[in-house]
């Protein structure tokens, strides 16, 4: 529920619930069996396939595609899950255009890569529809491990640990597990309650006890966990939000984009959410794009993203930028906010043009004003630092084995300095940390 500036045009029901439902339908609809066969047939089964190298979780892509082509989608799904137990979510949310599909040799050859993401979804959907979890927990090692944070990193870590025979307790501060899969990812990328279904699927291995509503620093502490468990993994993401640090930031019209998205994701009927007529989003990453696009899909009239650098520096991929523009979002580059204004009928943000100067980004002195009913800030999230592990530029420092500075404590995902704020990287780190924990405990 956005509030907007005092007196601003902010209201619910700009579109009918049918229109909103249609707007939030699957961004990439699933492939049919025949479409999947055709798409799979395009794969060359490359030697030492570049797509596989480009995948942060190292899925044997050529192999799973060959399994689809051979009408063995369950086998394909198993190949995917062996490396990435959240392969279903990754199939939906990975910016494949900058990962596997960018590396696909057919992208080099003809600018039309094999549709790896959609094929991955085809396979994982197929197996998940069976309702049978494809793994058994390993023979019990008698060890207990605490995993804090039930986002992609924590889920992947917990699953791999259970697979190795460890007893896992998975804590999360929120009432629902899933992390940003549940509260952050754009609604049209994971419709139909997929995030929740996937968590159930992951936990289906058994030997993982979920404890929601348990916050580190409030209900549990690292020291306590270290005392009760043989090892601790932190996958707590980034809870805080960066500040704009400009006058007017505290005005009611300035809101946090992540919060806005979380509310949207939790809403029973999104058309009941109040939305501004004119929305300004400040930032250049996935969050900015998602907040802008979803505002538009909820019926906002004018949505503008303002980013302080050029298009090539945006963290959102070209595909995401294009998506925003086709949905009618305007993207303005090279400008930074200098003041948020709410004076009578004049509501909005004053921006200053920027350029890259010798000492980094600098203002040109020339300003312009963008009228807005709501301002969403999406300029990055910050770690809500837990006591203990060493941090660097606001993130937990880890070594190559994902060990923190604290003995017996590992970390991965958005909360560590080694990440790149992608679901798939969080999964890879959670899994690798589990392997490292297992090595340490069984050495």
């Amino acid at each position, binding site marked *: 529920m956005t509030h907007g500036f005092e007196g601003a045009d902010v209201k619910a029901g700009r579109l009918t619930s049918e229109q909103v439902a249609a707007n939030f339908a699957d961004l990439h609809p699933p492939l049919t069996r*025949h479409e999947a*066969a*055709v798409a799979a*047939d395009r794969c*060359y*089964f*490359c*030697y*030492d*396939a*570049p797509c596989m190298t480009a995948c942060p979780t190292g899925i044997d892509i050529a192999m799973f595609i060959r399994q689809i082509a051979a009408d063995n989608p369950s086998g394909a799904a198993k190949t995917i899950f062996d490396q990435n137990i959240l392969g279903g979510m990754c199939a939906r949310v990975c910016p494949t255009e900058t990962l596997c599909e960018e590396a696909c*040799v*057919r992208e*080099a*050859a003809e600018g039309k890569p094999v549709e790896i993401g959609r094929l991955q979804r085809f396979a994982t959907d197929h197996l998940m529809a069976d309702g049978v979890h494809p793994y058994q927990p390993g023979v019990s090692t008698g060890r207990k491990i605490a995993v804090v944070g039930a986002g992609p990193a924590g889920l992947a870590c917990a699953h791999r640990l259970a697979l190795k025979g460890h007893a896992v307790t998975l804590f999360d501060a929120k009432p629902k597990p899933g992390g940003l899969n549940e509260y952050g990812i754009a609604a049209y990328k994971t419709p139909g309650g997929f995030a929740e279904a996937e968590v159930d699927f992951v936990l289906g291995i058994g030997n993982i006890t979920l404890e929601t509503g348990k916050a580190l620093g409030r209900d549990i502490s690292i020291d306590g966990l270290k005392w009760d468990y043989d090892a601790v993994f932190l996958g707590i993401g980034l809870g805080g939000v960066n500040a704009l640090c400009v006058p007017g930031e505290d005005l009611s019209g300035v809101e946090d984009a992540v919060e806005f998205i979380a509310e949207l994701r939790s809403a029973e009927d999104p058309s009941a959410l109040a939305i501004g007529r004119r929305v300004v989003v400040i930032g250049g990453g996935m969050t900015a794009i998602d907040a802008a696009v979803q505002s538009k899909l909820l019926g906002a009239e004018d949505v503008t993203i303002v980013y302080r650098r050029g298009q090539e520096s945006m963290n959102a991929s070209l595909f995401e930028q294009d998506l925003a523009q086709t949905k009618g979002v305007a993207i303005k580059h090279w400008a930074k906010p200098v003041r948020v204004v709410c004076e009578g009928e004049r509501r909005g943000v004053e921006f200053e043009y920027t350029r890259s100067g010798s000492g980094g980004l600098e203002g040109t002195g020339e300003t312009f004003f963008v009228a807005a009913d709501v301002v969403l800030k999406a300029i990055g999230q910050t770690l809500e630092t837990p006591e203990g592990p060493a941090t660097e530029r606001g993130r937990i420092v880890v070594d190559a084995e994902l060990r923190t500075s604290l003995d017996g404590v590992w970390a991965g995902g958005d909360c560590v300095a080694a990440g790149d704020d992608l679901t798939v990287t969080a999964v890879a780190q959670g899994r690798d940390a589990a392997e490292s924990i297992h090595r340490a405990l069984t050495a």
Partner: protein
Amino acid sequence: MADLRSDFVGIKSPNPFWLASAPPTDKEYNVVRAFEAGWGGVVWKTLGLDPHIVNVNGPRYGAVWGADRRLLGLNNIELITDRPLQTNLDEIKAVKRAWPDRAVVVSLMVPCEEVCWTEILKQVEDTGADGVELNFGCPHGMSERGMGSAVGQVPEYIEMVTRWCKQNTRMPVIVKLTPNITDIRYPARAAKKGGADAVSLINTVSSITSVNLDLMAPEPTIDGKGSHGGYCGPAVKPIALNMVAEIARDAEMAGLPISGIGGVTTWRDAAEFMALGAGNVQVCTAAMTYGFRIVTEMIDGLSRWMDGKGYARTSDFTGLATPNVTDWQYLNLNYVAKARIDQDLCIKCGRCHIVCEDTSHQAITATKDGARHFEVIDAECVACNLCVNVCPVEGCITMEQMPAGTVDPRTGRTVPAEYGNWTQHPNNPSSVAAE
């Protein structure tokens, strides 16, 4: 514009594209549609004696598919015509009268008794048809009754029946051969001895296209059982081409006209059959896959290609490739080539590397200075062509001949300028030393 008119054993047609004896030529209705679409001729669906045979009432066809369900091979268990003889004869007569410029040949299959053949030949003659084709080919069903390939697999029977026919009709007699034999030259020679005006080939190849793993029965399955069928379509073209070439280059059969059949789908397939010595081609599966309109592409494609090559008539290129089909022992062992990978075209899929590494001669690199890079190692390359065949980019890998006088780094030998084959090779125990 190239002149596509065809004269095959005296049977004239506006182009060399005939429909083979099969469902497309089963009825007046189909044949008229084919002629309207532009087909040069038809071989009418095989006639037999009354009472007419019956077909199964379950599925007759099985298939093998490639990408995007492209039909690569079709298999059938259909028998000959299942309509009364007189109905067919009446329709043949009507069609020939209405389409005098098109070839109408009638396919026949009756028991191995002379009287059966003489009688039916008379009836066919009365229709005004241009010729007959003796179906010694169908490998399923009719062969169990001593006809079709059961005749085609015994050269003596072929010769005998052909002779009966030649003695009892003025019409040209084409003998249609089965590929279900070990050496196609024996039945073909028998046909020639019996006086055949031409041979046509191939009929279908005995086959089971697939097995239904739930029913544990071959496809197509009829009430839990299946029977081998006859395979045709693009998948059989290589088999057919070889058989056509074997006959075309056989000294005993020099000059025997050949009607090429088996997987002809485009103008290029037709040109290939004709280059190997076929005077015309017959088509079945391509029409059964796409309908009759494909002949438009065939006519246009062939005539454009002929114009480009300067061939005025089809006879200008018929058989031009035949002399270049030789025995292995006469291939030039002094011809040395190496694969070359065009680095600008390479998309770095690595397929050439892995197939050469795993299954051939370890002659293609995977990396160079630590980076992904595929390059041929001349000291290992035997020029087998496997990399060319598996490369997904056309023209990226080519075979380059080593000029005479250069040293092959694999063998350390200088490439000779002169021709040298196995019969002259020192490793051949029975070699004849070159002068």
